[in-house]
């Protein structure tokens, strides 16, 4: 669709931890202004994949390319410097720190010089509040407020706003909607769209098909560490995607089974299989 080289690409990447092979022959690309949804069941290797993309892990084999050039990220910082911002699953914010201090953790604005460089709290708070407000979280007005008092969606939005602010070209979000309610998830999805509109390449990880369909341009389904399907928006229906994620076992059949069971058992669902 675009003649420009993809912003970020993986070519035949394998990742193993000692004897455990987690990723096999992963090839993926993501372009500017595009959302790549990475779908997969728990344990499929989604987090491992994005940790490899963000310099937390090194690929065991294979190449990673940025703008067509081969790259390596020995440390997370190297990936960040190349413009890859990652919001890891279960992380990114510190509950007992203020909004401003959270936003700038690891990249604090300072004023003064030499040993008297002071952390510029006012500037940190002001920018942090501005940036989260731009993302539509208008309830955060006080940069001194502790993050632990925010809702899950607000915390997630803060982490995303932070990633976007630090000049990311590629935004990687690991299950940002997993722990959220419907409304908060919708908010995060809006932020993903906003990031895309600004021309960022987004890799959005989820195991909720509806969330993926709401924002994705391009989809990849990961099963036991390998890409089982790779398709574009509109090429597959929700049911087909759900079936793929379930590993070929048809979700529709499963649902039909459950309904059949309930009809013959006074509306009770079947007991869990194991």
């Amino acid at each position, binding site marked *: 669709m675009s003649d420009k080289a993809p912003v970020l690409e993986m070519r035949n990447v394998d990742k193993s931890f000692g004897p455990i092979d987690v990723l096999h022959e992963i090839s993926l690309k993501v372009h500017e202004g595009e959302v790549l949804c990475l779908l997969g069941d728990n344990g499929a290797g989604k987090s491992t994949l994005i940790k490899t993309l963000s310099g937390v892990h090194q690929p065991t084999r294979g190449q990673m390319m940025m703008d067509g050039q081969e790259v390596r990220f020995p440390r*997370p910082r190297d990936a960040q410097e190349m413009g890859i911002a990652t919001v890891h699953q279960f992380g990114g914010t*510190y509950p007992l*720190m203020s909004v401003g201090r959270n936003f700038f953790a690891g990249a604090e604005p300072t004023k003064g010089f030499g040993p008297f460089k002071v952390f510029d709290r006012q500037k940190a708070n002001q920018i942090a509040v501005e940036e989260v407000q731009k993302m539509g979280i208008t309830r955060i007005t006080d940069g001194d407020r502790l993050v632990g008092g925010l809702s899950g969606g607000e915390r997630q939005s803060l982490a995303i706003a932070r990633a976007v602010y630090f000049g990311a070209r590629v935004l990687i979000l690991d299950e940002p909607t997993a722990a959220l309610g419907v409304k908060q998830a919708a908010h995060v999805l809006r932020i993903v769209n906003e990031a895309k509109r600004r021309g960022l390449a987004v890799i959005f990880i989820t195991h909720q098909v509806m969330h993926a369909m709401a924002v994705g341009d391009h989809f990849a389904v990961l099963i036991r560490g390998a890409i089982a399907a790779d398709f574009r928006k509109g090429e597959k229906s929700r049911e087909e995607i759900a079936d793929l994620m379930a590993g070929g076992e048809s979700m529709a059949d499963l649902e039909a089974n459950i309904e059949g069971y309930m009809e013959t058992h006074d509306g009770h669902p079947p007991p869990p299989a194991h």
Partner: protein
Amino acid sequence: MENFAVLLRRPAAASIVSLIGVLVFYVFAGVELDKLFGAASWVNYAARIGIVALPVGLLMISGEIDISIGAMIPAGAMTTAIISGHYDLPIVFGILGALAIGVLVGSINGILAVRTSVPPLIITLATLVAMQGVVLAGSRLLTGSASVPLNAPDWAKTIFGNLMFGGSHQVIIVWWVILAVIFWFFMHHTKYGNWIYAIGGDKESARNAGIPVNGMTILLYIMTATAASFVGMCHSILFNSAQVSGGMNDIFNIIVSVVVGGVLLTGGFGSVAGIFVGALTFAIVNKGIDFTAIDRNWSNLIIGIMLLLAVGMNEKFRKLALSHVSKKK
């Protein structure tokens, strides 16, 4: 009222309430406050534990702990006394020797803490016991005794080990206050303080955010061990001698004062002001008992109760801080 509410949300809140509570208790127990405030015993003691409590508090905010400090106070004292007392080398070497042994043991603690998955309590328990052995055996081997005399020149006494105000206040009180200001600046007004909070809040996220977690952790361990050996060095200069001792009391007293000072045991929360007041409060409880008719052994009961109350208050005030939203003016 609004100012009072702001105060309650600060990490130092519980320590200030503890301090007031302890003073009120002592007034009822018959202490004359002007006598207490004029006395040096508790201020000297506050400085002794307070100097070490500052870096220990920061280390605990970062989610680690160091109990080898108990061995490092006598180690600093013995090093100074052996070098400049027994071998009669200039005091500068004794001072540098004491600081060097702090840096060395702190580095060992720090490197083990970041390189292995052994819990820091166990690592520093090992270095605690090891250093107790090294100090005793080293002192016996080199000097043939467990107590070494030292005669420091006047300038060294003036700076590190003298009494002030023509009375019995030790000069390390000044060191404590200066160090507290430096630590306060470092923790609350530089980016390094932010890193320490982040490391204690979520180490994995801090690493992902590019914060040099390992370097920072090693630095904090070096600071705790060196602060302890510094205190030992000052005492050997003040008392003209150094003895081998276990230092077990110091470990508990320092950690209790840090916790009373509002530092969260699991890391991520606390303040230098709180740590400072915590040491002050602890010292008043510990030494203030001598100003009452109460048997001094009861002071430990008071410390136990104070610890529980302070931790309870810390929980409460932290919840207050978390749920607080400032109204738009």
